[in-house]
C-alpha cells in the first residue's frame, strides 16, 4: 500500500487511463469501441516514439515509415488470403510472387512486420550514428526517408496499391478464428499493456539511464566508456520493432492502409501527440495520443471547418503554457510539492 502511495503521479495517470480503456467496451457503442480500438494501436506507436525521442532525444520525423512498413507487410499478407489481390491483378500480375506466399502465413507476416522495421531502423542507425549524425541532421534524414518511402509506396502501384492503398482487409483473427469486436478490442488492449510494461521496464533499467545520458551529453558518455552509437542503434531498432508491431495491428483493426499512414503527415501527427502529452515518461505519449485523437474526432464533428484551426491553436497554446506537455506539467507540479525527490520524468 505504502509503495503504491509513493508512486510518481504519472503512474496514477497510466493506471487510470488503462482502467478507463479496459472498461470502455462496456459502454456498448459499437462505433466508439472500434474507434478506441484503433487509438489503442496508436498508443503502441506513441510509446515507440517516446523511447526514441523522449528518452534518447532522437527526433524521428519519419517515424511513420516504421509503422507503415509493419502495416503494409500485414496488409499484403491479409489481402493475399483470397488469392492474388485486386491491385496486383490490375497491374498485370498473374501469379502470386513467392514472397507473398510466404507472407500469407499470418505468423510469418507478424514476424516480418515486426522484424523488418526493426531491421530497417537498425541498419539506418548503424549507417548514421556511427558517423555522428545527430540533432537536426537526424531529423532531416528521417524526414527525407519518409518522403522517399511515401513516393516509393505510391509509385509501386502493382505491389502496394499505390495512392489508393490496400483496403477491404479482414479484421483481427487469432489462430484462424476471426475475433468479434469486443474480443479484438481486448486483444489489442492486452498487447498495449504488454508494450507499456516492456517500455517501462526497459526505460527503468540501466539501458534507459544510458539513453537519457545520451540525450544530455553523448560525447561525455563516450569518455565514460560507452559506445553511444551502439546504444542509439539499439534503441532505434527496438523502437522500430514496436512501431512495426503497431502497424501490424493497425492493418486489420483499421481495415485498410494507405500512403497517408506512412508519410510525413502521420509522422508529424505522432510528434504532436507526444508534444501535447509530454515526453520522456511514457505517460505523456499515451495521454497525448488519446487526447488528440479523441478530441480531433469530436471537434471535427462539431466544429466543421474550424477544427484544424483549433488543433493548430491548441498545439501553440500547449507548447506555450505547458512546454513539457500536460503530463510533464503534472509531474512538475507534483515535484514542486515534494521538492528534492528524484522524479519519474527524469528517472
Amino acid at each position, binding site marked *: 500500500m505504502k509503495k503504491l502511495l509513493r508512486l510518481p503521479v504519472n503512474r496514477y495517470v497510466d493506471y487510470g487511463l488503462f482502467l478507463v480503456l479496459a472498461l470502455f467496451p462496456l459502454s456498448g457503442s459499437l462505433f466508439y469501441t472500434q474507434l478506441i480500438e484503433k487509438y489503442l494501436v496508436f498508443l503502441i506507436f506513441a510509446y515507440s516514439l517516446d523511447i526514441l525521442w523522449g528518452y534518447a532525444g532522437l527526433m524521428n520525423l519519419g517515424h511513420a515509415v516504421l509503422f507503415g512498413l509493419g502495416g503494409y507487410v500485414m496488409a499484403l499478407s491479409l489481402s493475399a488470403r483470397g488469392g492474388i489481390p485486386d491491385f496486383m491483378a490490375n497491374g498485370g500480375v498473374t501469379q502470386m510472387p513467392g514472397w507473398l506466399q510466404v507472407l500469407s502465413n499470418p505468423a510469418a507476416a507478424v514476424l516480418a512486420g515486426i522484424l523488418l522495421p526493426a531491421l530497417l531502423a537498425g541498419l539506418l542507425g548503424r549507417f548514421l550514428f556511427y*558517423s555522428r549524425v545527430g540533432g*537536426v541532421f537526424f531529423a*532531416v534524414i528521417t524526414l527525407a526517408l519518409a518522403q522517399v518511402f511515401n513516393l516509393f509506396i505510391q*509509385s509501386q502501384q502493382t505491389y502496394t496499391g499505390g495512392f489508393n492503398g490496400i483496403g477491404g482487409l479482414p479484421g483481427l483473427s487469432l489462430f484462424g478464428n476471426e475475433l468479434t469486436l469486443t474480443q479484438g478490442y481486448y486483444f489489442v488492449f492486452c498487447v498495449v499493456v504488454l508494450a507499456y510494461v516492456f517500455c517501462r521496464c526497459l526505460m527503468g533499467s540501466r539501458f534507459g539511464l544510458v539513453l537519457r545520458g545520451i540525450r544530455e551529453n553523448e560525447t561525455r558518455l563516450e569518455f565514460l566508456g560507452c559506445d553511444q552509437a551502439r546504444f542509439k542503434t539499439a534503441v532505434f531498432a527496438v523502437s522500430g520493432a514496436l512501431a512495426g508491431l503497431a502497424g501490424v495491428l493497425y492493418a486489420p483493426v483499421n481495415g485498410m492502409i494507405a500512403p497517408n499512414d506512412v508519410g510525413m503527415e502521420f509522422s508529424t501527427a505522432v510528434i504532436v501527440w507526444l508534444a501535447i502529452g509530454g515526453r520522456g515518461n511514457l505517460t505523456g505519449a499515451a495521454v497525448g495520443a488519446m487526447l488528440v485523437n479523441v478530441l480531433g474526432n469530436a471537434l471535427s464533428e462539431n466544429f466543421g471547418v474550424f477544427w484544424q484551426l483549433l488543433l493548430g491553436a491548441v498545439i*501553440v497554446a500547449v507548447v506555450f503554457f505547458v512546454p513539457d506537455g500536460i503530463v510533464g506539467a503534472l509531474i512538475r507540479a507534483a515535484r514542486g510539492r515534494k521538492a528534492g525527490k528524484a522524479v519519474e520524468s527524469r528517472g
Partner: protein
Amino acid sequence: MPFNEVNSMDSFLALLLNGLNSSALILLAALGMVIICGLMNVINLAHGELIMVGAYTAFSVTQVAGLSFAVAVPAAFVVSAAVGAAMELLVIRKLTGRPAETMLATFGISVVLQQVTNLIFGAQSQYVAIPIEGNLSAGRVVIPYYNIFTILFAAAVSAGTVLLLKKTRFGKRVRAITQNRTMAECLGINSARIDTLTFAFGCGLAGMAGALAAPVKSVSPFMGGPYLVSSFMTSVVGGIASFFGTAVGSLLVGESTALLGGVSNDVFASILVFLLIIAVIRFKPEGLFAKERR
C-alpha cells in the same frame, strides 16, 4: 528503371538551365530558413506557410488591388516579415532555448496560417499573372524571360543577405546572439530587438520567394509543404549556418533533380535526390560547409 538518353548537347544545356531555375527558387526559399535556423536555432516549420503568405500577398496586390508585380515583391516581403515579427514577439520569444518546443509551436502556427488563409481565400488556387512574358530561344534551348529574372533576382538577394550579415553591425549582433545570448547581452546588445528583426527578415525573404513563385506555381493554402521540405534539406546539406553552403546545396538539389528527371522520370528523380541528401549528410554529418569546431 529505364534511363532515356540525353540526345544532344542542346537538351543537356536546356536541362542545366532548367536546373538553374529550380535552384534559384529553392535558394530563395532556403535563404530565410538558413537565417532563422542557422542563426537563431529555430526550426521554423511554418516556413512554407510564410512563403504562402508571400504568394497570397502577390495575388492580392496584383489581382485584387490591380497593382504591378514590382509592388508585389516588396509587399510580400513586408507582409511576411510582419507575420514573422508577430510570431516572434508573441510565441517564439517565450520559448528561447527550447528548440523542440519552438519547432512544435511553429508547427501549430503553420496549421493556423493554412486554415486562416483557407477561410479567407478558400482552398482553390489563385491566379497570379506572369509579369514578364516571352522567352529566349536558341535551337532546342528555351528559357523564359521570367526564369532569367528569377535567377538574377535570387543571386542578388543572396548577395545582399550575405553582405548584410557579414559586413554590417546588425549582422555581427545577430551572430553574437546566436552563439551566446547572455554574453551578447552583457556586451550591450539588445537581443530582444535583434531577435525580432532577424526572424522578421528571414520570414520576409520567405515571403519574397513566395511572390516570385506565385506566377509559375500554384497559389493555394496548402502550397507550403514542399517548399518547407526542400528548404530544410537544402540548408542542411549546405551546413546550416553557411550561406555559401546553401547556395551550393540548392544548386545540388535543383540541378540533380533536373538532370535525373531529364534522363529518367520525376518520381525516380525525387527518390534519388532524397537518397543523395541522405548520403551527403551521412558522410558530411555537419553539412558540406560546416565550420571547424573544438
